[in-house]
């Protein structure tokens, strides 16, 4: 098992090096300092920034230095936020992102696997048709529209109607919530007791719900297709010939086989939730990974972009490796080969 994990890790090293090469290369298509400072920057400023960022060295040296420092999570200092290191920004933006993505992933998976199973269990009946149609309709609407109307109906309208008890808040005070109610240990922000279930519901439930609704269409369709595909396997006929009930076949025989694609789906969604939440974070002003990165991109804050992509890509690759390991745990064929 350990050699399996090690092999997967080694296989992904060139991919990871490639990602860093690509991102750093792209960022140097135009002189990053000019891009950051704009057209009318003075020479001294430029020279100073170039020097401090080591942009005068050959690319390969810069690349090596980035790797070496990256090993110690040292990505330098942000240009935009003087005096703040990229690492601090990174660590500060993880809890807000996670407070949305983790519940969203769990909810989405539980709901859509259940719905997908139900749909395939009643394949061809009206409830299945209804779910299939709903999924296609849902998939045809833009994410943005879900966010806008989610906020409108989820928070704005109830407040306008004067429902005092309505728990959901229009994201706006998010920034404040996170910056005030947490403290820092080793540079990592830890939620302060002020962040409790009630305040979580107030600020995070709405974006979580929106994200769940958006992914529902895609996920239920996928899980249904997985189960329907299992329906056509030979071992299902064997099980029926044994006298197994439809329920037993579905929830014992098929589900265990379907675990493989289900795990893959969930694992590959992990990093996508970081990016998928870019929109939510932008819209609800959540100071998470996604928003910080996109803001850095539009601000041309190069150390931030490099550092964030390096970490996000690392998480992505680790999730791929984790998927392979989980595979091996579920499928006896993989484990022993």
């Amino acid at each position, binding site marked *: 098992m350990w050699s399996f994990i090690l092999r997967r890790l080694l296989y992904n090293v*060139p*991919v*990871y090096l*490639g*990602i860093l090469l*690509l*991102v750093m290369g*792209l*960022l140097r*298509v*135009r002189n990053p300092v000019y*891009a950051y400072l704009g*057209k009318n920057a003075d020479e001294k400023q430029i020279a100073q920034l170039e020097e401090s960022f080591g942009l005068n060295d050959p690319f390969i040296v810069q690349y090596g230095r980035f790797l070496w420092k990256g090993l110690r999570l040292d990505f330098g200092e942000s240009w935009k936020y003087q005096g703040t290191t990229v690492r601090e920004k990174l660590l500060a933006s993880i809890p807000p992102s996670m407070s949305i993505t983790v519940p969203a992933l769990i909810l989405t998976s539980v709901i859509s696997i259940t719905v997908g199973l139900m749909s395939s269990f009643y394949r061809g009946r009206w409830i299945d048709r209804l779910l*299939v149609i709903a999924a*296609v*309709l849902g*998939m*045809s*609407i*833009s*994410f*943005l*529209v879900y966010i*806008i*109307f989610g906020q*409108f109906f989820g928070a*704005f309208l109830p407040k306008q109607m004067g429902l005092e008890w309505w728990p959901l808040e229009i994201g706006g005070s998010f920034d404040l919530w996170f910056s005030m109610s947490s403290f820092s240990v080793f540079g990592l922000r830890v939620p302060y007791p002020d962040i409790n279930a009630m305040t979580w519901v107030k600020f995070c439930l709405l974006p979580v719900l929106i994200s769940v609704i958006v992914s529902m269409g895609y996920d239920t369709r996928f899980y249904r*297709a997985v189960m*329907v*595909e299992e329906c*056509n396997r030979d071992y299902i006929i064997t099980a029926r010939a044994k006298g197994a009930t439809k329920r037993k076949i579905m929830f014992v025989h098929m589900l265990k086989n379907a675990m493989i694609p289900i795990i893959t789906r969930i694992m590959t969604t992990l*990093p*996508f939730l*970081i*990016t998928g939440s*870019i*929109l939510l974070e*932008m819209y609800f002003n959540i100071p998470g990974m*996604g928003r910080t*990165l*996109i803001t850095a*991109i*539009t601000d*041309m804050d190069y150390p931030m*972009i490099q550092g*964030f*992509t390096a970490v*996000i*890509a690392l998480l*992505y*690759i680790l999730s*791929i490796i984790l998927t392979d390991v989980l595979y091996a745990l579920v499928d006896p064929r993989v484990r022993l080969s």
Partner: protein
Amino acid sequence: MTGRLLRSRGARKFRRNRLAMAALGVILLYFATAVFLFFGGVSMEATKERVAPKHTPGFFQTPDLDQRLAFAMHFISEVDSATRLASRRDQHPHDILVEKALAERRPARLEPQRYDELLDEAFGILEEELDLVDNIADHPELEPRVERVEEIAAAFFPMPTGWEGRAYWSRTFLGSDAAGQSISIRAIYSIKVAFQIGLITSVISVLFGSLLGAAAAFFGGWVDHAITWVFSTLSSIPYLVLLSVLIVVFFGTIFDDPERPFLSLVPIYVAFCSTFWIGPCRVIRGETMKIKELEYVQAATAIGFGRVYILLKHVIPNTAHLMFINFSLLFIGAIKSEVILSFLGLGVKGQASWGIMIRDAKDEVASYFFWQIGAATFLMFVLVLAFNIFTDALQDAFDPRHVD
């Protein structure tokens, strides 16, 4: 290659699927509109022209009083500056106004002194009766006065009739946005932008990706390793981040100029193409791996045909159905991604698009004005839905492994 596909069993199955044929019809209708727009059916200027008071609701409901007043004053101040210029140049005001057809409303030719009379009356109403009020929208009793100002504006610029009247109707029946621009015209014009982005990026991505995928699987060895490495690298960067970085590279160049709307789409093409090819590449690679083992390919090898010939003649044509499916999937992806990028301020610049409209509309929702987001969402929804149904039917008909 296409002919073989159209005669296949899958194609017959597809043609029997009524829903899919309806979806195809909708797509073709949109496509025809896009072609019509591309050849100048609606000019870009028309999408930017002020045709109605700000935030006019659709179906000819009346907007707020203050907006009506502002829109009427828009015409009146136009006439005001024209009369001043005319008196300086000693011309008839109409000679100066004649160039200005404001939203199909052409200036009427009045007696020269009539201009001053009407202007005086309008400014009189404005300054003496309406200017004292804080928020005209809260004072419905002032409506007759605003109506009078509107009548004066209509005297200068009469409501169009006949063919022009119909054109004016088509511009205002879905209301107007925050700049008084026609929502209907902008939403329709966006079809062209969507098809431009969708067609260009998905055609290039599918061709490029399929070729690479087929080559990787067919030649194997280092070719396969290199291509696999490139696409696993690209797909390990979150998609939106990669898109944003690719687009930001173009910032500050001539491709970042709202004044050149066609050039400003180039970063989007580049960004989409460099991420979209991965999907078809993966699929075609897998399919080619299988085809390579089939007897007829091995027979062709045994006969002594060249490898490139076999690849082009025997392998790629047999993946045509997958290319169509991927094309359709990427088209949906392109339309949706355009909306998201436009929201982030990285998308379309200088012209209307559904993404721009939805972004502009996000604050209108809070004042219960749904016309802009509704129009953009509806047109986009119908197109994406048609493509979704079309893709499903394609997969159903051509991809035996796909299950519904």
